[in-house]
């Protein structure tokens, strides 16, 4: 199967049409189970009390934030190197999803931080690098918005995504380095208690629900972008001929 096997938009649309309802249904089911387990079944932590429940949305959201950027960067590389016509769209479609998850990781983390650390925000290495990741997403989406011509915008955004991808580990590393120098090691201890299986299950199920959500939205947004691209070409041709 060649790399261009799915390049045929019609084939992609057919395949997406088949997968999307299943992914959507799976999202709903997993989310319901996950929420029930997280809010009702899972025991309160002996140290953190009920606040530990925030973990069941916070941690999967944080995972998805990083996963989406990886996906975006790989799709961009495929778009630039092999000029795969769907890769552009995949990258573009995944950005708002990733940005939303990053935003959620930040907000749920903050909400968790208030009872645990007594403050909404500290400039800890991990927090800071997530915040910067959020900016990278915003920049990526703003660049797509700012350039009118779809093909040009795609290539420019892909260049940015790759440069950003090189930078993410550097940021992570540099922020760690920076933080160890300044931060009095008092408040922050993320290694926390080892995870029980009573907590592991809801966490895993929520994580799976988020993945399914990602797949569903990715497919829908890619199909939308594909349609818009066709519509634009048809409209432009109609007007000018």
């Amino acid at each position, binding site marked *: 199967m060649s790399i261009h096997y799915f390049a045929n938009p019609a084939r992609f649309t057919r395949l997406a049409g088949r997968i999307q309802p299943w992914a959507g249904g799976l999202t709903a089911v997993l989310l319901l189970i996950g929420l029930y387990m997280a809010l009702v079944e899972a025991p309160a932590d002996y140290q953190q009390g009920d606040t530990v*429940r*925030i973990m069941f*949305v916070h941690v999967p959201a944080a995972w998805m934030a990083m996963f989406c950027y990886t996906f975006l960067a790989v799709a961009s590389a495929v778009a630039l190197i092999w000029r795969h016509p769907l890769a552009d769209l995949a990258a573009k479609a995944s950005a708002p*999803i990733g940005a939303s998850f990053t935003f959620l990781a930040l907000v*749920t983390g903050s909400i968790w931080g208030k009872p645990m650390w007594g403050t909404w925000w500290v400039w800890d290495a991990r927090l800071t690098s997530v915040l910067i990741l959020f900016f990278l997403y915003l920049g990526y989406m703003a660049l797509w918005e700012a350039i009118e011509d779809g093909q040009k915008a795609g290539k420019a955004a892909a260049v940015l995504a790759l440069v950003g991808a090189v930078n993410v580990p550097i940021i992570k590393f540099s922020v760690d380095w920076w933080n160890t120098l300044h931060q009095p090691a008092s408040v922050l201890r993320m290694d926390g208690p080892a995870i029980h299986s009573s907590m592991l299950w809801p966490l895993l199920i929520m994580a799976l629900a988020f993945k399914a959500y990602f797949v*569903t*939205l990715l497919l*829908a947004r890619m199909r939308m972008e594909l349609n818009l691209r066709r*519509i634009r070409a*048809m409209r432009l041709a109609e007007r000018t001929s």
Partner: protein
Amino acid sequence: MGNMEQFLSMGGYAGFIWPAFGIVLIVMAFLWIASMRSWRKSEQALASLRQHRRQRGDIEE
């Protein structure tokens, strides 16, 4: 009833836990609805445009 109240109070942390879960669900629902709606709209627009062209007898793509 007391059980329900106890559940809702979340061991005194209701003010943190419910907003946290709430915002997650709101943001996810919002993005879901927005994505699905714009996808459906694009399908409709494309379909009507195609039909319009077929009526005029243009060659398709």
